[in-house]
């Protein structure tokens, strides 16, 4: 198959979403990485004389109810959101893929593990996460575990459905006829065929996890509220939402832009990677 030369217009139309979202995401990652340079104040420094200030020259986005600089908190908050989101999704993809392969390949595993995963899926995600955190106790590590568990069933199901169709293919049967081990068939024959749905799932999962994590922080069950994070900022500002809506607004905007960029990235990647949609 020869690669067709694309007109610049068609090329742009196909990749525009990925490129645009990529630029936005790059900015956000840069912001997280260079947070100490960008931030104007120490995000943890309380200042009781300057509480709840409106945006001014000293504080671009104003201060919160403890007098901390909002802009700096949002800049530092991106670090927490991104680190948690990436860690959670990497863990969930790795574990979920292994589970999915196991479940799709072996019937006995399907009966046991899939029932458990479906049980998790049956509960509303937030409620389940809150319950899990209440049981485990709060802390970044607990939050990571909880968010990973919440993400597992979807990924395992995605991989399982791929495995179910691929394992009936004749190249798999041929490998079996040659005496290939189950592990070899799973990782060398089946897994490479699952990569594009997984890449898509990973990108859109990053956005979703930021959202879930922010919701949990907003509900007060996520992180230590002193650590700057977007959900926490909204949580602390919610009492003043009628008087000073900008406090919620800026953090909400940060979440919205990031999640939107990840979703558009995921959608764009799906259109490029999925040959059926071409």
């Amino acid at each position: 198959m020869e690669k067709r030369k694309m007109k610049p217009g068609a090329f742009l139309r196909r990749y525009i979403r990925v490129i645009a979202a990529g630029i936005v995401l790059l900015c956000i990652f840069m912001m997280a990485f260079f947070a100490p340079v960008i931030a104007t104040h120490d995000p943890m420094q309380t200042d009781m004389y300057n509480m709840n200030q409106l945006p001014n020259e000293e504080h671009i986005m104003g201060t919160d109810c403890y007098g901390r600089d909002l802009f700096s908190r949002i800049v530092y908050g991106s670090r927490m959101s991104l680190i948690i989101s990436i860690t959670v999704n990497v863990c969930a993809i790795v574990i979920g893929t292994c589970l999915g392969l196991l479940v799709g390949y072996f019937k006995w595993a399907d009966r046991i593990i899939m029932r458990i995963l479906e049980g998790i899926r049956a509960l509303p995600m937030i409620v389940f996460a809150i319950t899990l955190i209440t049981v485990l106790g709060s802390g970044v590590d607990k939050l990571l575990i909880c968010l990973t568990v919440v993400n597992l069933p979807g990924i395992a199901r995605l991989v399982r459905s791929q495995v179910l169709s691929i394992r009936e293919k004749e190249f798999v049967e041929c490998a079996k006829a040659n005496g290939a081990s189950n592990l070899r068939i799973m990782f060398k024959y089946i897994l490479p065929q699952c990569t594009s749905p997984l890449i898509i799932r990973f990108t859109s999962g990053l956005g979703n996890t930021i959202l879930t994590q922010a919701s949990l922080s907003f509900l007060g069950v996520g992180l230590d509220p002193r650590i700057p994070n977007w959900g926490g900022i909204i949580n602390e500002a919610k009492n003043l939402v009628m008087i000073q809506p900008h406090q919620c607004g800026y953090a909400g905007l940060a979440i919205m832009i990031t999640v939107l960029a990840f979703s558009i990235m995921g959608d764009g990647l799906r259109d490029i990677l999925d040959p059926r949609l071409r």
Partner: protein
Amino acid sequence: MSNEILVQATHVKKWFPIKKWFFEKQNYVKAVDDVSLTLYRGETLGIVGESGCGKSTLARTLLRLIEPTDGEITYDGKDLIAMKGKELRGLRKRMQIVFQDPYSSLHPRMKIGQIIAEPMLISKLKKTKAECMPRIYELLDMVGLDKTYVDRYPHEFSGGQRQRIVIARALATNPELMICDEPVSALDVSVRAQVLNLLEELQEKLNLTYMFISHDLSVVEHLCDRVAIMYLGQLMEIGTVDQIYENAKHPYTQALLSAIPKVGQHDSSGRILLEGDIPSPANPPSGCRFRTRCRFATAACAEKPAAVEVEPGHFVTCHLICDGVDEKEA
């Protein structure tokens, strides 16, 4: 063709359980039901039958890709069913299979070189891919493909070329037995002959034994030494090509043979038309499987017929053989 037995299958059965409700009786799809046949070293045995008559299931059972429900299979005198782990893996490289669909037989993300190297790596004949390279070149040359193809992906090839790659892969471990499961039915007619000729050439060169599954009777006549006719999971007739094509005894075989289109023949008066559909293999007729569609069926056919040797090596499973079907037809 010698008289040395390579594969001997005795009373092989493969029943697939049907999903049942709680207290229901367990039912089975009897895909292969009591088939016994012998494969001699160096011969080509054709397996012919309608779609769904269990040809492919039989082939997969003989390779132990699926476990038979019952019966015995010996390979080169050794019991194949009892074999486990290492011993079985040692045998696997001696038998290979070529599937019908060359498109799904090749892993779309592997390069041709990797695809052909895989059987050698799996069976631990070679340790690294680099060690396999000379053999890969040799194989590509053997099936008539260019050496430069090793770094290409399967989607860059046509159906015929893909089937050549599949054959090269099957030959990688130097097998004795090659089961060809309708290897040419997915190819168009012009390429079909090339692949068939290639198979014949390879058999001569490498002294291969073929089990050739097909529903194309003219291909089977051209390629095979012996033919087995299957219907609803059972063998109806087995014999040499001449015995079957010149002197078919079973009414089903006769009907099949009369359905071969012939050049220049315009009237279809000589055709034997079978009525009705093939019964469900989950609920096959008792006794002779073919009796619901047989022109000569009598009350005796409700009993299960035994295989009768009408000529040396020519077995027919039919009650009417003693009476002589030929005379009835006349």
